[in-house]
């Protein structure tokens, strides 16, 4: 229920080092809430849907900030703000796809404080879930969106399993297209997983959109050099150009050799709980000449397995158009 007053009280912790954050997470367990930029977190608190005992403000951890080049690509601290990424010369030169994508997030003020880690890890925007209803994603046993009366124009075309919510991140499809690796750290060590493992669908975990465990912190995102400087395309379609989450967005990274597509990664957001990678389409266009026919073929074949709900059928032609444009217009 929406209560418009100040938030319920919580204890705030501002660790300056990762190890302090881990010990806080270990001692508070389920009662802790990890907060980065805070724009999403504070909405949960204000609506009193999430009432953590302890909020751990990660923004003081210097080791999780900044962009640096490494021998095999670029490392982006999870606390790096979207504005910094958008304006970073290395990202703009080598991974323009990500700079493009994050420049479409929300509004300037939000980009100034929203972090790439928070953007990639943000929870579903399904209005029933955000309203605090006891749906599957909230630990309940029903879905309010996938019903005859449910308003589901923003919901999933692919991979729905009881829950039909989608990922609303603009950064996530771009990171997936760039084959980013996610570094998750906890007091017991670290693991590095690919985007396909980091983002999880409701069939695997109906309560979370990412594989990060409660005691883990997403500290770093690594972009491999394999996709640096390839042909990129990002486009987002939303109801408004500012603030709104994507209805559908597309991020494509295409490696071209002698006018033919050598390899590609095309990822669509807003159509599934995870960034929806078009593995089949990538296979179909591999080796084909980069021309109009290939682009049309990619678009047409992209929506083959779509299962629309009552009100989101419009996403099918929208997605097909975006994929066509991505293949047609991807440039270095």
């Amino acid at each position, binding site marked *: 229920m929406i209560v418009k007053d100040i938030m319920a009280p919580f204890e705030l912790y501002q660790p300056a080092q990762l190890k302090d954050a881990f010990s806080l997470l270990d001692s508070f367990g389920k009662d802790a809430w990890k907060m980065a930029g805070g724009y999403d977190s504070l909405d949960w608190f204000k609506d009193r849907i999430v009432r953590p005992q302890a909020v751990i403000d990660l923004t003081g951890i210097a080791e999780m900030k900044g962009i640096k080049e490494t021998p095999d690509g670029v490392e982006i601290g999870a606390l790096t703000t979207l504005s910094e990424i958008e304006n970073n010369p290395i990202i703009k030169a080598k991974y323009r796809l990500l700079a493009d994508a994050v420049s479409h997030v929300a509004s300037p003020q939000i980009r100034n404080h929203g972090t790439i880690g928070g953007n990639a890890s943000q929870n579903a925007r399904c209005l029933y879930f955000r309203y605090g209803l*006891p749906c599957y994603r909230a630990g309940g*046993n*029903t*879905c309010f969106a*996938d*019903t005859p009366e449910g308003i589901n124009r923003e919901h999933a075309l692919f991979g729905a*399993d*009881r829950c039909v919510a989608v990922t609303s991140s603009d950064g996530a499809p771009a990171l997936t297209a760039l084959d980013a690796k996610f570094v998750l750290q906890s007091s017991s060590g670290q693991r590095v997983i690919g985007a396909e493992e980091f983002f*999880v*669908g409701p*069939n*695997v*975990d109906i309560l979370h959109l990412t*594989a990060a*465990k409660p005691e883990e912190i997403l500290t770093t995102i690594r972009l491999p050099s394999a996709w640096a400087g390839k042909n990129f395309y990002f486009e987002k379609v939303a109801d408004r150009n500012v603030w709104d989450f994507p209805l559908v967005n597309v991020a494509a990274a295409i490696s071209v050799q002698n006018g033919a597509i050598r390899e590609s990664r095309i990822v669509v957001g807003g159509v599934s709980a995870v960034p929806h990678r078009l593995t089949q389409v990538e296979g179909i266009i591999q080796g084909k000449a980069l021309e109009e026919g290939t682009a049309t073929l990619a678009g047409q074949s992209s929506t083959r397995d779509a299962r629309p709900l009552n009100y989101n059928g419009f996403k099918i032609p929208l997605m097909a158009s975006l994929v066509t444009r991505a293949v047609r217009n991807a440039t270095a």
Partner: protein
Amino acid sequence: MSSHAGSVQAGQIQRHKLVDRLYHWVMAVCILTLLATSLLPIIGWKFAWLAIHWVTGLVLTVAVLFHIVRALFFQKPMSMVVDGQDLQNLGSGGRPGKYNLAQKLYHLAIAVLILSGIASGLVMLRKIDTPWWRRDPYWFSDSSWGVIYSAHDFVAMSLVTMIIIHVYFALRPDEWHLTRSMFRGWITPKEYKDHFDPKRWNAEEEA
């Protein structure tokens, strides 16, 4: 105990026919699969469990239906029912029939649990998309669904307790003749003489 028809050979007294043993093991695999697919994700091992879970549930349902029909009409259903003699034997220490009191009570408890698990599970199938129908969460009110889910959850957790107890008894040396018979189907004449009351379990007639 001389030769009889079927697979029973000299020196072997048939206890469980192949079809009954198969049923037991099919049920065991189904229940372990159902428990693994439901409880492992809860304790933190996440995987795509739902499809395996409901398909296994349907397999178990068919197996249980088969067992009910077979036990009621083609076997001796009374051999699994607690009778007065069982209670008298509690004091006197007399030998049981084909199944002892503990087995009868265990069977009763498992029957109640699995039948409620299947009943609640079949209703819950209405909440998911299957090849045969689209989900309809409005079949019952929120709280009715909650009660059904609670029943299903309690059955699942109770089955864990029951399986621990079952495995323990199967591993006890003084019950090995029973455990072996669930693999090979027969017991030795000596085991028959030592553990069972021939008046209450006429193995010759049954075979």
